[in-house]
Each structure stands twice: as structure tokens, then as C-alpha cells.
């Protein structure tokens, strides 16, 4: 058997290295500037392993210059079978750059034709986010409209949320039994909206304990939450005319640690046997530890979280549970202030818009009229 160089066969690795083709360089869209995008067609020698041809290209080298004649400097490299790259190394906005891409095999290189000048710039609007902008405007508009609507004294109907109607009864029970009301605002910090929603509920519960004269105890896991809870409770005691019952120690810090916090609250529950326990905010695994221990001491428990994995345990082990969105609505619901209720109504309209979009969208997708779903691609 004879082997002829340059024909098809296992020796093709020795054929000449071909350059990548059709190099294009553009400014990276929707960015802060200082970045260019490169695209090219693969070298004819760069094919998948096992395919006819040879796969000996070891990569591509990106080379850049300030003028079309060079000198070209290597600014990066990418593995074989890659037809695009981005260059963000030391580029200045408004300056033109020239590029070429070289196929590399060991020591040898085959550079493409030079492409340029390409000028990096920053953009003032992210075009990929038009859909989000529309959503922001529509939702904000609806909510603001109904807040204003309610502020003018128009009535807003809000359905009963049973867990929240039980707050009175639960606090009253603690007063009768002469035991504490324990309020746990979740185990996370102020940088979570669930914690903020929990603190809003604390504000309403604290008014009740102030009025009934029940003892409130708020153990917290974060220092900032401690500060915010103190402000909230203090405000509630002042507003209801019981400033003398307020002490800073009603709200106290335990530890930042999830399970350290759970262990300490377990201790509080077992030793002080609170009559009523509120768990409102973001809870993770500690949810069940707290709910089960609370249950074992016979307390009435009203829980609420938007963490789906913990909801089944709250639903099972607590007397009342606020699910997901209900947690965020609770503060507004309990306040009974028209503006707050108006925002709930606006939020509902937002949901209605989504429902309508879902129906229209599914119909359009099914009929194949056009790709409606593409309007909802986020970037």
C-alpha cells in the first residue's frame, strides 16, 4: 500500500494550515463600552474530531493593532471550534482598532485578513430590556393609580385573609394566659424584602400587644433587623399611647447564624412557653425546627413566608399560614389604610394583565401566528 501526501487519508494533518475567513468586528451592544465582539468562519482545517479532514488546529489567536499595517499584538486566544470572541482588554471608547484572527497549529499560524477600524462605545439604553421597562411602567402605573384612587376615599374591596383575622384572637389569648407573644421576623437580613414584609406585620402586631398589655418578645438574627424592629415596635407603642410599656430589650439579638438562632429560640420556647408565636419573613430549614417546637409547647402559631420549600411545613404544623404573595399583602391588609389597600388592588390588576397575556400568548403560540413568547425573553 502506498501513501500519497496531500490526498485524503490519515496523513492529511500535514496539509497547509488554512486561515479563518470572513472576520467581522463590531461594538458589543448594550454595554458600558470598552468591548468589541469578533466573529469569523472556522479554518478549513478545524473540524470535529473523527470527521473527515483534520482536526489539528490547536486554537485561534486574537491579534490587535492601532493601524491596519500593525504592529499586531496578541490579546487573547480561544480553543478550536470557536468562531467568536470578545476583546475588553484596555480598549478606549471612541478609538478605532484593527484585528486579525490567526489559526494556530503548534508553532505555525495562518492569520485572517485584517478587519477594522472598529470603535467601542457605551450605550445609554439597554435595548434588550424594553419588555422589562414596559412591565415596570404598566405595573407602577396601575399601582399608583389605585393608591390615588383609594386616597380619594373610594372604597377598595379586599377579601378576607383568615390568618390575619386571627391576629386579634391570638394576641388576646396570650394576654389571658399571661404568657408571651413571640414574634420571629425570619432569619435573614434587611437586604431581603421578605424581612421588610415581616417587619411591617410586626408593626401591626405590636399595636395589638400594646393595647392588650401582652408581653412581646422579638428575638432577631441580624443587627440591622434589630434596629429596624426596635424602631417599629417603639412607634407602635407610642402610637397606641403606651410608651411606658416599651423597652429596647423587647427586641434582642441572638446570633447571625441560622441554626444557632434556631437552637436559641428552641430554648426560649421550651423555657418560657409563649402562648402565641408569629413567624413572618424569610425562613429556610429552621422553619420546621421552630414550628415543631412551637407546636410541642401548645402555642397558637401564625406563620408566613414566600419560600416555597418551607411552606408545606408551615401549612402542616401551624394554625394559619400566609402563602407567598399573601406575606407581602399582610402589612397592607392589617394596616387598613386606604393607600395600602389601593396598592393591593393595583397589584391585582397587574396579575389580571398577566393572565390575559398568558391566554393570548398560548393561543398565538398554538396557532403559530408569530413567536409571541419572544417578547418575554429577558437579557
Amino acid at each position, binding site marked *: 500500500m502506498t501513501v500519497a501526501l496531500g490526498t485524503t487519508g490519515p496523513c492529511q494533518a500535514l496539509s497547509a494550515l488554512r486561515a479563518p475567513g470572513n472576520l467581522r468586528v463590531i461594538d458589543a451592544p448594550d454595554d458600558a463600552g470598552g468591548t468589541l465582539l469578533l466573529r469569523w468562519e472556522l479554518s478549513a482545517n478545524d473540524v470535529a*474530531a473523527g470527521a473527515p479532514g483534520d482536526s489539528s488546529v490547536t486554537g485561534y489567536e486574537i491579534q490587535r493593532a492601532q493601524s491596519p499595517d500593525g504592529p499586531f499584538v496578541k490579546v487573547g486566544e480561544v480553543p478550536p471550534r470557536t468562531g*467568536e470572541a470578545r476583546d475588553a482588554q484596555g480598549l478606549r471608547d471612541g478609538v478605532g482598532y484593527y484585528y486579525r484572527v490567526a489559526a494556530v497549529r503548534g508553532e505555525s499560524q495562518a492569520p485572517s485578513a485584517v478587519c477594522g477600524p472598529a470603535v467601542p462605545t457605551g450605550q445609554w439604553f439597554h435595548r434588550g430590556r424594553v419588555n422589562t421597562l414596559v412591565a415596570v411602567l404598566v405595573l407602577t402605573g396601575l399601582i399608583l393609580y389605585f393608591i390615588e384612587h383609594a386616597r380619594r376615599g373610594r372604597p377598595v374591596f379586599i377579601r378576607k385573609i*383568615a390568618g390575619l383575622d386571627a391576629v386579634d384572637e391570638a394576641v388576646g389569648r396570650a394576654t389571658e394566659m399571661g404568657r408571651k407573644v413571640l414574634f420571629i421576623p425570619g432569619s435573614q437580613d434587611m437586604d431581603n424584602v421578605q424581612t421588610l414584609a415581616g417587619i411591617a406585620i410586626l408593626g401591626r402586631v405590636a399595636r395589638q400587644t400594646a393595647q392588650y398589655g401582652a408581653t412581646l418578645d422579638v428575638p432577631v438574627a441580624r443587627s440591622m433587623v434589630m434596629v429596624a424592629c426596635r424602631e417599629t415596635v417603639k412607634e407602635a407603642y407610642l402610637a397606641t399611647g403606651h410608651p411606658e410599656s416599651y423597652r429596647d430589650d423587647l427586641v434582642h439579638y441572638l446570633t447571625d447564624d441560622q441554626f444557632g438562632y434556631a437552637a436559641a429560640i428552641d430554648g426560649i420556647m421550651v423555657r418560657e412557653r409563649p402562648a402565641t408565636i408569629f413567624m413572618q419573613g424569610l425562613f429556610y430549614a429552621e422553619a420546621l425546627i421552630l414550628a415543631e417546637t412551637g407546636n410541642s409547647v*401548645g402555642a397558637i402559631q401564625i406563620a408566613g413566608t414566600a419560600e416555597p*420549600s418551607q411552606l408545606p411545613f408551615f401549612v402542616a404544623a401551624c394554625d394559619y399560614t*400566609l402563602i407567598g404573595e399573601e406575606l407581602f399583602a399582610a402589612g397592607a391588609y392589617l394596616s387598613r389604610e386606604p393607600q395600602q389597600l389601593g396598592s393591593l388592588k393595583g397589584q391585582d390588576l397587574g396579575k389580571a394583565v398577566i393572565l390575559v397575556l398568558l391566554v393570548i400568548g398560548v393561543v398565538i403560540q398554538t396557532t403559530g401566528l408569530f413567536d409571541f413568547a419572544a417578547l418575554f425573553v429577558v437579557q
Partner: protein
Amino acid sequence: MTGRAPKHGRPGAAAVGTTVAGAAVAVAERMLRIDRRWLFAFVTVAVSLPLFFNLQQHVAVTPEARGVRDAVAQLPPGAHVLLACDYDPGSAAELQPMTVTFLKQALSQRLRVIVMGLWPQGPPQADLALEEALRDPAVAALAPRYGIDYINLGFQSGNEVVIQRLGSSIPAVFPRDYRGTPIAQFPIMAGVRDFSSIAYVFNVSAGYPGTVEWVQFAGDRFHAHVGSGTTAVSAPLYYTYYPAQLTGLLGGMKGAAEYEVAAGFTGKAMTYMFSQSLSHIVVVIFILLGNLAFLLTRSRRPQP
């Protein structure tokens, strides 16, 4: 959503009848009042005992788990993969076997593995996993070397912002490896720039920051291929990302065992599966018994 859960068994049970039904109710009432410490004891035994027996069970592989195995299997030798260990020893029982198996599969395929963590306790866990993976015969035969075939870049604080920064430059986020050596000295990092240099991202996640952030930033924003191994408790939520945004998903110990079977490396997850099975059965029995007792006593309650 509301509903008052009955808290305690009804004490001072109704008269113990002479009929069989009455006796059944009496038993049910006692069952409802059982001290929960008996339940605890039962669980302890059911979980401990199987640990002492090395029983291998047949594990069926789900498409989600196969997704991880396939995504890795199709990569050419020499491709870079990123292993992000975002967990701590608390979740190691479920997640460590996934890390180990991923390392075994990747290293035995001659992929280049870059390890990092958004949790400070992640990189030490990865070191432990590396030790174990390197002992596997299929891996040991190839004798992978640190800095050439794998590297541990360590922990970086900043949560999802770190992922965002990796999107513009990996070397800028990790100028040094876990032990403080500049990464320029390691051949494995040559040519690694951003997510475009990474063929696959495998995130082992115990919470925040974790898979949600990797999907949102590395996947959605920088178009990296992302696979996830996660605690079972997070798995139901992450199913909403599969298969559109996640190429594969391992949920808990079972997911780890499936991956071990799919990739052909039997490990700790498989040995734990017997305990796991038995513990599930105990819980199911508890639910059935509890409900049986509940139904028996309820049927006897006078209607208002």
C-alpha cells in the same frame, strides 16, 4: 390559606366500648397520644442500622441526572469545565458525592477542571473531593496534575456579583489560586478569559448564592451551559429551570446516586441509598398510621 391542625390527641377518650370498633378507636386514641420520642427512636434505628450493611440497590436514572452526565461526556479532551462548590459541610452528605463523581468523570475524560466557590467552605470541600477522586483507578491511571489538569481557585466573596465579574474576566476575579500562587504560573489557566472559554459550568449548590444565581447570570446573561447538583429541598424549585436553562439537575442523595450510576463511578451516595430508602418508608408508614388513627377517631366523634 388556613386550616387548624389538630394539635393533640383528644385526651380523656370516649368510653372504651365492648365492640371491636370501640377497641379500635381506643387504640387509635392511644396512638394519637403517643410520646413523640418513640417516633424519634424509631427513626434513629431505621436510619442507623442499614449503614452497617453494604447493600447495593438498583437505581433508575432520570433524564435530569443523565443530562449532567451527557453534557460532560460529549466534551472533547482538553476542554475547560468550571466546578462551583457553593455549600458547606452541613450539606455535605447530599452534595459531596456529586462533587466527587463530577471530578471523577471530568478528570477521567481528560477535561481541565477549574474549581471555585462562592461559599467560603466550598473550596475546602472541593479539596476533600479531589483527594477522593484522585484515588479512583480510572482517574489515577491518567495521573492528573495540579495546575495542568485541575486547579482550585478558592473562595471569592460577593455572591452573584462574582459571577457577573467572571463574565468579563476570570483572571481578574481570581488573580491567585486557593494557596496564593499567581494563576499565570499554571498552564491550565492559559487562554482562560471568561465564560466563552468554559465549556460547561457545574454548580453544586446548597442555597444562596447558588444555582439560581448561576442560571440568572452565567446562563441567562453570558450564555454558559450550566448544570446543577443541589440539595433535595431546593430541587423542586430548580425544576422550573430544567431543561431550558439547566442542562441537567441532580436532586439530593438520589440524584447523586443516579449520577454515580450514569457516569459509571459507584460511590458514597449508592452506599447510603439503603438508609435513604428505609427512612422514606418509615415516614410513609408514619403518615399512614397517623391518618388511620385520625380517621378512626374522627368517625367516632359526634356530629355537631
